[in-house]
């Protein structure tokens, strides 16, 4: 990480052991145990396409990142320099309010003219004026919990992804099956220990259980680095 860029988590956040979804009851939980190197690939698979998070909606993006996800403020300001809300580049994250079902994508500084144009507060912002997020509000209006879709890219994926995955993210069960059956490389599947609701299992058994558990569309996926 470059000098002047802080660590991703706010002080003490690495010791937070409670899941992000402690308030969710009766949700099936998949815990995967992986080595550090395989974990990087798993995060890459998961966060580029996106995961679901249950968060307090009505809050600003800044509130979500710094308060709800415990990311360090300097890290958010300096490192997460490119942010999209529903495919619209955001310039002021303290006034962009998250709604239920929104898609939030986080990236570090990107190369190229367009990479620079898409950055928060870029002086080239007029070049992408027609797609820029503009529905700013001055105050948070924190409401109940809602599901949002979170995507992480590039350096943010590497730096924040493992932390979020250790605390747990939600996925639709079809996406979990797709992940385990079709997307994971042998490197991951060969190094994987899986626990479904606390009981050790295998990929085939897990997918079978998920398919038969039609009452639950969502599952909680957690990572334990072994």
């Amino acid at each position, binding site marked *: *990480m*470059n*000098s002047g*860029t802080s660590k991703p988590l706010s002080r003490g956040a690495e010791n937070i052991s409670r899941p992000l979804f402690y308030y969710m009851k009766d949700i099936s939980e998949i815990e995967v145990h992986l080595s550090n190197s395989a974990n*990087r*690939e798993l995060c*890459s*698979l998961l966060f*580029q*396409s996106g995961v679901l998070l249950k968060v307090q909606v009505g809050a600003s993006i800044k509130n979500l990142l710094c308060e709800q996800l415990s990311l360090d403020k300097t890290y958010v300001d300096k*490192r997460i*320099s*490119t942010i*999209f809300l529903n*495919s619209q*580049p955001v310039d002021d994250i303290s006034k962009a309010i998250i709604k239920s079902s929104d898609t939030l*994508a986080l*990236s*570090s*500084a*990107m*190369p*190229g*003219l*367009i*990479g*620079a*144009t*898409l950055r928060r*507060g*870029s*002086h*080239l*912002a*007029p*070049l*992408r*004026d*027609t*797609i820029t997020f503009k529905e700013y509000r001055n105050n948070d209006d924190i409401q109940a919990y809602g599901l949002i879709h979170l*995507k992480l*890219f*590039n*350096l943010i*994926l590497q730096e924040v992804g493992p932390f979020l995955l250790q605390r747990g993210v939600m996925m639709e069960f079809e996406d979990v099956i797709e992940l385990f059956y079709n997307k994971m*490389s042998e*490197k991951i599947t060969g190094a994987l220990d899986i626990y479904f609701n606390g009981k050790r299992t295998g990929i085939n058994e897990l997918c079978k259980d998920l398919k038969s558990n039609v009452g639950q569309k969502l599952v909680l996926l957690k990572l334990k680095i072994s």
Partner: protein
Amino acid sequence: MGKILRINMNDLTVKPDELGEYAGLGGRALTSSIIAKEVPPLCHPLGPNNKLVASPGLLTSTIAASSGRCHFGCKSPLTGGIKEGNAGGVVAQKIAHLGYSAIVLEGKPKDDKLRMVFISKDKTEIFPADEYKDLGNYETVAKLREKYGKVGIISIGPAGEQKLNASSIAVNDMDNRPTRHAARGGQGAVMGSKGLKAIVVDDTGADGVEIKDKDEFKKWSKIFSDGLLKHPVTGEGLPTYGTAVLINIINEAGGLPTRNFSNGQFEHAANISGEQLTERCKERKGKETHICSPGCVIRCSNVYNDKDGNYITSGLEYETIWAFGANCNIDDLDMVARLDRLCDDIGLDTIETGGTIAVAMEGGLLPFGDWDRAIKLLDEDVRNGTPIGKIIGSGAVVTGRVLGVTRVPAVKGQNMPAYDPRAIQGIGVTYATSTMGADHTAGYAIATNIMKVGGYVDPLKPEGQVELSRNLQIATAAIDSYGLCLFTAFPVLDQPETFEAIYRMLNAQYGLNLTADDITELGKKVLKTERDFNTRAGFTNKDDRLPEFMYQEALAPHNQVFLVKDEELDEFWNF
């Protein structure tokens, strides 16, 4: 400052020439000045009156970081206008090291024989190259490397020999592979029209470039290099992921042209992303970071291997992955890598070729996503010069005409690169007004408000797109004249001392007193010179427009058409 080496292919003579009125110019400023002054604008691009100029930048062959670009210029057979394109690799530094500011290929041989040129400290020779006829760039470079040792090689593949509009000029990289290309605008065809397969540059024993004030140069080159290394894009983002890191971001912004510019998002973008590419390179023991020319500190290139660890290609970049990936509906990086390798070998521009295949897919020649047929089109048809191969090798506009496709995303005959201007409208201004045709690098340098070219643009004003595009193009034209990689523009944008280092290095090298204003003025002069050539070649403001369908067909997910008015585009040249 060096001399111009003039190589006349008409009478096969060689003559070193003084720089004369071109003194103080390098890179794009020199190529465009020579073309504008010496080439009749109405000449046929493949005829005897066109010239092909190769020029290192003013800082090339010094210790200035990332200053090894080789610039090529001519009248383009693809656009009919002036063209400058540049490549990394090892040859620019060797040309500069020999004391040449430019190599100018002139005339046309009286016969159809293929030749090559050998340039060294003591002599320049032209001799037959029959044994290299029809060879791909890879085999050509391997043979020349075996014969001549550690040399710089400029070469063309079968596409250039066939004088196809989409043909490129290849330069060998640090691993002696022909992976660095001045690709856009069909410059390979111009080299082919002069009957030249390769230029071999051997700088053994050369004196190198003179530096007037070595201590001062060293001081500012360190500031420049430190600026690149400490910046998050050039010091970390690009070395980690390469340019392909843009796939996810441009896709998220809804500006990744998909299936011939029919959508702004590709549903399988994660399969071809920079993140995926990096994992793949690591897993297969390729290189996720790689240097394309000596002295580069950015290291944004890569080496991509197949699943068995065998080399496929190098420098798999964002534009190439987009062109054959999202734009052709191919979500398999292995297939994209194979298509890239074929382009490098045959000598084709990946942007034009990927764009052309997407147009061919829309025209029904092959289905979207059919990588197998796409590979055959290149490897069998274009390489061997079949009728359909010649059509594909002639670019998107020709292919669209043949197949009756109306949605051809081109400006001035050149296919657009990997950013849809309906999502990011400012890039559309650059595509429309660039002297080069649709070109993302024309307005790539982003030093506008630091350089204050044309005044400070208020970032809160949405109407500043034309002004910004103009400033960007001026800044780019200047940076292109120093031999610097355009990626150096990012730290220049964010760090004033990095920008200052550029003209301080020039002052130290040449004993000059340049200021930021001089750099701006150079950029303006280059653009006006190029515009003047295009005007004399018959271009008018009506050519500064995007294709009709982009004004009519809204692009998902933002559902936007191109909104910048013609009269606003016409304001571009008011400077």
